[in-house]
């Protein structure tokens, strides 16, 4: 037992000390954060107050309403809120085009300091009756600027239009309602309170996390085995402990590194999404479609986390055993990288199956895949993320993997035990079977 602990500790400490671990653990989330955050920084420019000249050639109160709405629009929230526009209203008095031309000529509508006029809005009768508004400015390519303006003008002009046909305030309110398809996931006859979109993203992320971690840490076990073999240190070690103890220590050590790395990534990810989430909600009026949607942060239930952890651990042990067996058959890392294709393919199949699962999480394919131990570790958490199943089904699937795990570990252990002492060419299938049967 102490020997296994020694192996675990060595594996853990030596791995955590490497540069690649530090880089991978801290730089990756930093880069992801940066890539997420950088565009936000870049569009900052657009968030300064813009100066707007409105030429009013429309009748009635349309222009007043629009200007009021423009002036009320704010960038940011709370103390940091600034007005989005400074507005100068000019009555056209029948010479809108002359006014327009002289403004373009004299002011030029170039970008200047915040608040300096760089945009020209022309409201005409057609604006009210047909919704046609003319805008001139240097920033017409900015989708955000344009949609922000559309969002502000639309309701005001619609209201004016309705007012002209003498609609009462109840009709006005009724007309303001927008379509909002609120799709909510139902599982086991219960409302989950989870939106369809969030469920998709959750399943997608879970799938990706399972795939990447199984592959990454499985490969690490394999590389560790090959290196130990090519360093020839393995012989000294297995004179003092059983190959199984060594293998177990190695797998647990690598697994622990993986968990630490996942935890750091997870914590950073959580921190970044909440931080960015609050930031984007501050800029929510910038969003293209104007709804109060920022990042869809999927709801993660405790049960789902437990299911993910359970199947990550089971899957990790299952695939590590396979990767270790592959590693033990090879003499060099390059050789092992070629030999591991069948195992890697199995993980990939599990991952790809997700796209079928999302359409039919309880279909025949889903059920069949769930009970093939090699796919269960990926399929189960994904299915659970889409639509949670009962505890019994989860435990049955887990039991299924455990049985598969026992068989695979037994087989892999027997191959490993002979393989780590065999050098030279890779064994044929017949020779492998001979290894398994060796006393």
């Amino acid at each position, binding site marked *: 037992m102490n*020997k296994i602990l020694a192996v675990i500790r060595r594996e853990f400490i030596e791995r955590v000390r*490497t540069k690649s671990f530090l880089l991978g653990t801290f730089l990756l989330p930093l880069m992801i954060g940066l890539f997420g955050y950088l565009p936000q920084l870049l569009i900052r420019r657009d968030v300064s107050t813009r100066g707007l000249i409105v030429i009013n050639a429309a009748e009635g109160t349309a222009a007043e309403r629009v200007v009021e709405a423009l002036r009320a629009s704010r960038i940011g929230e709370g103390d940091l809120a600034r007005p989005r526009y400074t507005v100068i209203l000019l009555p056209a008095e029948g010479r809108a085009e002359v006014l327009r031309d002289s403004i373009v000529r004299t002011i030029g509508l170039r970008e200047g300091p915040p608040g300096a006029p760089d945009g020209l809005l022309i409201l005409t009768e057609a604006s009210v009756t047909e919704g046609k508004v003319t805008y001139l400015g240097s920033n017409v390519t900015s989708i955000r600027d344009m949609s922000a303006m559309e969002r502000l003008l639309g309701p005001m002009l619609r209201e004016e239009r309705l007012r002209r046909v003498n609609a009462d305030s109840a009709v006005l309110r009724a007309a303001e309602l927008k379509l909002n398809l609120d799709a909510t996931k139902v599982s086991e006859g219960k409302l989950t309170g989870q939106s369809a979109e969030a469920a998709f993203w959750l399943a997608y992320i879970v799938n990706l996390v399972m795939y990447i971690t199984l592959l990454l840490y499985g490969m690490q076990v394999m590389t560790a085995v090959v290196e130990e073999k090519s360093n020839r240190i393995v012989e000294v070690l*297995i004179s*003092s*402990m059983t190959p199984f103890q060594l293998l177990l220590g190695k797998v647990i050590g690598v697994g622990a590194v993986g968990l630490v790395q996942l935890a750091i990534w997870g914590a950073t990810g959580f921190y970044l999404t909440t931080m960015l989430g609050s930031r984007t909600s501050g800029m929510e009026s910038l969003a293209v479609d104007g709804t109060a949607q920022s990042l869809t942060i999927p709801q993660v239930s405790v049960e789902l986390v437990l299911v993910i952890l359970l199947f990550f651990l089971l899957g990790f042990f299952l695939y590590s055993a396979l990767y270790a067996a592959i590693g033990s058959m090879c003499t060099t890392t390059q050789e092992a990288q070629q030999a591991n294709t069948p195992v890697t393919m199995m993980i990939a199949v599990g991952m790809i199956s997700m796209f079928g699962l999302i359409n039919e999480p309880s279909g025949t394919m889903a059920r069949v895949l769930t009970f093939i131990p090699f796919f269960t570790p990926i399929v189960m958490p994904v299915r659970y993320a889409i639509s949670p199943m009962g505890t019994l089904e989860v435990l049955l699937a887990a039991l299924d993997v455990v049985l598969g795990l026992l068989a695979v570990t037994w087989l892999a252990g027997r191959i490993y035990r002979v393989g780590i002492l065999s050098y030279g060419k890779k064994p044929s299938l017949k020779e492998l079977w*001979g290894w398994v049967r060796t006393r």
Partner: protein
Amino acid sequence: MTAPVVFADRITKRFAGHTAVRGLSLTVPGGGLYGLLGPNGAGKTTTIRMLLNIITPDEGRVVLFGSEGTGRDLSERIGYLPEERGLYPKMKVLDQLAFLGEAKGLSRWDARKRAKSWLERLGLGEWTLRKVSDLSKGMQQKVQFAGALQHEPELLILDEPFSGLDPVNSQVMRDVVVDVARSGRTVLFSTHIMEHAEKMCDGVVIIARGEKVVDGPLAQIKHEFGKSHVALTFSRNQAAAKRVLADRNLVAHADDAGASAEIELAVGAEPDALLRALVQADVGLSRFEVVEPSLQSIFIAKVGDAAQPAMRQEA
């Protein structure tokens, strides 16, 4: 009488296609140095691996210290230096040794302490915090040697311990090994360098093609080999000397190295007769000595000519 430290009873190991070790029995008494000799491919490493239970014999059994457990169960009492040396290249020397100590059941603290003192003893004190890959090959060998010795095992099993070492380091290691044996512990080592075995060993076992050829205390083996051997050196006329040595009435077998030879007299032949023949042949005799047979000649006589090319190659 106390149980032998190592006792192997007709152990056999087959690999796909061939039998590496066949019905080998071995008894190593406690204390002293014991050599496991044999040409390349004789099954020395396989035998050692079976003794340590790294691989399981197909037939037969191994008993260590007269106890029930296998080599792995008893690994705290055994030190092992495999033929293929290896360390984790990226680990610091001290961490590496401490880990090897822990694998032998030492506590972490104790393992570090012992590792430090062994590194000092082998002249690697300044290198404790360097990576293994920074060390020269000879230094790495020393580190591994320390790894086999640091938990003060009662039984030290070394597979080709002196191969690949320069004469100075080889001498350092041999001194350490002899020290261990003098302190009453047992050292079993394999080698194909007969001079080392002859100088160091109290007992030897010679194996060839997976089978035991001869074993026992060195003196007894020499006594039982029992033939009269003559060591010769001549300064001229080697062709004439060769003719004399080819005379089967006088010489049963000659280990001829040109200017010198060790010969085994034919049955019934007297040393005097050989001396007379050589003087007549005018070979400028500078040495004529009736000697005990050397381990080398015993080895060659027992193992046969098949082993010779392989030995010349490596010696």
